């Protein structure tokens, strides 16, 4: 550690010997203890659990090695079938929802960026759903898309006279309330990030482009979009991470149905572990799914690491 700002000579020497020795570690201690107990230890403990046949009613756990990991890669086991199917469901949700969540947030931010009458009201309206808790949001959207008399079916009836669609009980269509609800619920976060990024784009660029006769689309394509690339990368990664963690929305809106077609992988893991009491199997799935997530969490980590490095250089 090379500190550029350490007080010169005379001050550092006595400090190092007498005080600095222990004090910093005392500050770190409370967090370090909790960090060890609730972050480090559970990883090792989870590995231990996943390699035993964990029985909640027994104190002696039988060692089974990698059996539960092998199950996940052996065709024919229920774990194989449901783990990969729900993982596919979750991936489908991510692939569909991330572009929508990023594009609609960007669109709204562009609409709201320039001053307009009622701007803060609009901002508040678009952000507000995000503060609702997931079960409130889920129950509300289940009602909105009710098979018979939901508002969506009522509006369709009013506009086109079409017969109600049983959204919640039709495979495939059951994703619609989940995706629409998720967009409604989380759009405001990405929009706020984009608005902040947009306010950092110099107005003079637009003024110059507009004097040169650039159309609004050209301005967006050649100024806004390139200037927003870093924040877009961030938004895509965090949104994809959040989408892969799908749990509450599908649980409360469709409860994974019909016939597991909207069950997320996390819901399946909790079902395996907590409903079926297959603790070890669920722990193994957690590891396998977690390892896949590492691609995204790793990318997120790199972004934060860059932030740390640049702030250290700047100090």
């Amino acid at each position: 550690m090379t500190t550029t700002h350490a007080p010169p000579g005379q001050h550092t020497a006595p400090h190092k010997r007498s005080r600095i020795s222990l004090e910093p570690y005392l500050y770190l201690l409370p967090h370090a203890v909790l960090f060890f107990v609730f972050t480090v230890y559970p990883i090792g403990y989870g590995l231990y659990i996943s390699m035993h046949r964990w029985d909640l009613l027994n104190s002696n756990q039988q060692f089974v090695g990698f059996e539960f990991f092998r199950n996940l890669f052996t065709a024919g086991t229920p774990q194989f079938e449901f783990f990969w199917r729900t993982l596919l469901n979750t991936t489908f949700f991510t692939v569909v929802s991330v572009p929508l969540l990023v594009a609609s947030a960007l669109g709204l931010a562009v609409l709201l960026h320039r001053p307009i009458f009622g701007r803060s009201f609009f901002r508040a309206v678009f952000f507000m759903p995000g503060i609702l808790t997931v079960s409130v949001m889920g129950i509300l959207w289940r009602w909105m898309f009710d098979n018979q008399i939901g508002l969506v079916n009522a509006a369709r009836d009013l506009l086109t006279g079409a017969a109600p669609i049983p959204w919640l009980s039709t495979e495939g269509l059951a994703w619609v309330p989940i995706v629409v609800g998720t967009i409604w619920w989380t759009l405001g976060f990405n929009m706020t990030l984009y608005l902040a990024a947009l306010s950092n784009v110099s107005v003079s660029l637009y003024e110059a482009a507009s004097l040169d006769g650039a159309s609004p689309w050209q301005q967006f394509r050649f100024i806004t979009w390139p200037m927003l690339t870093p924040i877009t990368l961030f938004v895509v990664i965090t949104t994809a991470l959040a989408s892969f963690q799908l749990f509450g929305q599908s649980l409360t809106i469709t409860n994974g149905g019909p016939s597991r077609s909207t069950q997320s992988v996390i819901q399946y893991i909790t079902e395996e572990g907590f409903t079926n009491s297959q603790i070890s199997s669920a722990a193994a799935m957690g590891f396998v799914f977690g390892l896949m997530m590492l691609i995204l969490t790793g990318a997120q980590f790199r972004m934060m690491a860059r932030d740390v490095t640049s702030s250290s250089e700047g100090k």
Partner: protein
Amino acid sequence: MTITAPQPTQTANAPFKKRRLPRDIPRFLILCVLSILFLAPVYWMISTSLKTEADAIASPVQWWPAHPTLDNYVAVLTSPDGNILRWTWNSLFVALTFTVIHVVVCALTAYPLARMNFRGRNAWFWIILSSLMIPGIVTLVPTYIMMLNFNWINSYHALIWPGVSGVFGVFLLRQFFVAIPRELEEAATLDGASNFQILWRIILPLSVPSLVTLAVFAFMGSWNNFLWPLFTVTDVDKMTLPVGITTFSQRYTTEYGKLMASTTLAAVPALIAYLVAQRFLEAGLSTTGLKE
């Protein structure tokens, strides 16, 4: 884009703005339509909650409650299946306790990491930072078994402690502390201030915005936590609001008037908090790029 630095003179700017005004009208109309779409579910929630159960599912649909009533609210608030006020209190207590402990623990850790020199400082910082890469699902099952072993199932402890050492808060505060000019601290050191006094009298007062941001996010995170309390708290009296509400959705499967009354009641504290904390929330999001 090689254009000389713009000279935003009054004369050049004023007509530019005026010309744009008519062009703002379509934009304004689009925003109005989108706002209506965004508010429709909220209107529908409140409107349904004020209808009788028969009116709620009446066909053709009732856009406005024909026989407005508060019966659903009375039914929900006096429900024998769970006390929504009790759940709100549980959520509030858990979220507040969690927030206080989390902010204190994070500040204590971020301080030496940002402002002191000691052996292993960088190593430790990178170790805890890299834990951000561990997806929560990995530790879900083992932490649940730990709660069983600690006998913490159905206790507030399970809802408070496991997340307290979250590293994002350390990262956020460390980044902020690092940016505080050293000169203030050096002057205080010369005056004989201890490290703790520097933290308490200089660093923390200067960091109020980032502390508030962290507190708002910690509170929201805990308040909205769903998966973990869903499995660690099964005792109806110990449930938090998000979990309690879902038991209503199982109890009143198709009684949408009551369901919407319960979700409206659950949304009210969040909406009030949002109006109060809006400034910090949005400022925090913008400055940290932090997201739920």
